[in-house]
């Protein structure tokens, strides 16, 4: 694989994504973790761009960074009244968790490396047409209409539910 600017940027995004994700799981300050998560999410969005999934990348940024991350920050603020943000991790738990995660990673890497069908599929850089229109068609008119409608119900339910639960008292 030739080493071009594109690949350089790719690796850059990859590195940023992974590093920030690593930060998310390791930094002690939860607000820092939230910011690291934001970086990760951007990184992933970048990777989507590399995959020529433009709409997806946009959604990622809007929904995740604009929605979820904000939610998380709200959460942090609402639950950490006494700025109890530092997180203490026990060694045993850390080791065990690390072990399990590592084992999973090794398994996944083995699979990735050994699955013949996934080998040698490189991005030849051919530009693809923008996906937005076909996504719109698929979701609103064709195959993915049902999931779309269902998800809308789901969102409604989540909305009602979240409101229901986070309300202080339902009825007196």
């Amino acid at each position, binding site marked *: 694989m030739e080493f071009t600017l594109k690949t350089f940027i790719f690796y850059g995004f990859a590195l940023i994504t992974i590093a920030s994700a690593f930060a998310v799981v390791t930094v002690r300050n939860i607000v820092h973790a939230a910011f690291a998560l934001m970086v990760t999410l951007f990184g992933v969005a970048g990777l989507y761009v590399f995959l020529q999934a433009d709409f997806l990348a946009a959604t990622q940024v809007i929904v995740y960074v604009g929605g979820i991350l904000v939610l998380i920050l709200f959460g942090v603020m609402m639950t950490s009244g006494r700025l109890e943000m530092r997180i203490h991790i026990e060694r045993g738990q850390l080791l065990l968790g690390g072990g399990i995660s590592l084992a999973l990673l090794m398994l996944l890497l083995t699979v990735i490396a050994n699955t013949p069908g996934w080998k040698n599929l490189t991005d030849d850089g051919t530009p693809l047409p923008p996906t937005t229109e076909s996504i719109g068609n698929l979701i609103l008119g064709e*195959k993915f209409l049902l*999931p779309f409608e269902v998800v809308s119900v789901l969102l409604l339910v989540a909305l009602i539910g979240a409101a229901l639960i986070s309300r202080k008292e339902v009825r007196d």
Partner: protein
Amino acid sequence: MKPLENIPSLAYFTPEILLVIFAAAVIILDLLVKNRESQKVAYLALIGLGSALVAIIVTNSISASSEPVPLFWGMIQLDGFAVFFKILLLLATAATILFSLRSEELDAKLKGEYYALLLAVTFGMFLMASSTNLLMIFIALETVSLTSYILAGFLTHSPRSSEAAFKYITYGAVASGTMLFGLSLLFGMTGTGDLSEISDQLVILLAPEQETPLVTPLALLISITFILAGIGYKIASVPFHMWSPDVYEGAPIPITAFLSVASKAAGFALLLRFFYTGFADTKIMHSIDLGLLLAIVSALTMTIGNLAALPQQNVKRLLAYSSIAHGGYLLMGAVLLTSGNAAIVERGVGAIIFYLIVYFFMNLGAFYVVVLIANEAGTEMIDGYRGLSSRAPLVAGAMAIFLFSLTGIPILAGFFGKWILFTAVLEGKLYWLAFVGLINSVISLYYYARIVKVMYFEAAEDTDKLSFSKGTFALLSVFVVPTIFIGLLNIFYSLSGNIRLQ
């Protein structure tokens, strides 16, 4: 049959649509009625369920042919199997609503949202029972899960309820995340989301005549195990079961009942369809020993469920473990999916379906008694059941029947359920599994009988008679009578035998 497109599919989708409509209607009605008349909302929800039931029957009859009808471009499929589960789930929801009406812990909280959520979760379960696409499966699962989290945490003033919801969602989120990862791997291997296409693809990819199969068994194994985490968590099978005792204990009793019956049933519907449609081909089976995997999970599930139930003091928690164990029994039937013999698969599915019918009545019945006792005696602990036979003879008698049915004592329905399960398992030549199952039935006697013992053999400290309304007994008899008679009537056997996966 070619998948129907969106518009023609709608006709077959009426039940689900009705559920959503009524869910919305419930919320609106809730805004209109006064607080004290919240029962009206419940009745509206029940009407919704009733109309959905009618719709199910009608749509089922217009499809006429016994062939399954793929809908919405193959996202879901309407067939006898789905219809059965839909009816079962619908009835479970109806029962839950009725329980909720009589549950004092929920009393003050009952309002439109609750019923709307119940209808929504039913909607999600309907989809679980009929999905044939990876995406649809995941969305359906999430719909059910998210709604369940909320329902479990519905008692906002109760720490237990909140804790239950918290554990449930944490656990559920991780499990569904893992599952999604597994689904993505599966998608990556086959390049499609449609289950039957996945099956076809996998056969090609794994085909032995091809010199280098494009998919390694390990990849498939990891993918399936990850997916199993999501499904296993729904049906609370070991090792994905650990949320369920805590959640069952913390959640409002009607919701616990609902989770233990409906959620589990939906999970099984999903499991069966997923493995049957996607992985039933023997070639796939040979690449990874799925049968053994399921069998071990099944054996562990029932054993651990039963063993852990032994020392429980809280009836709800005890029943939670018991329902884990019953999940294990049901999984025995699922193991038969991998037998590669169509007749045996059919028996396995039939056995699961029959068992679910039985389980529906006996488990819901038991939970209903728990609701009643929690209302009247104000406790969920076994000690609170002391001397119940003299305080409330009919309720105690009903409870004894449910518990012995859960144990599998003839001539109660639970026995027949187990019997046809074991017959199927033995027919599939899984002798060790049958043996484990039977030993477990014996162990289970111990804790079920403990409740009976307390109710019957020990004297009550508080000797006041408990009084119940007529409606209570009527509802109770709705569960008692089938628990006694289902096994004795041929109709249920032929019914369950006729429902098959396609």
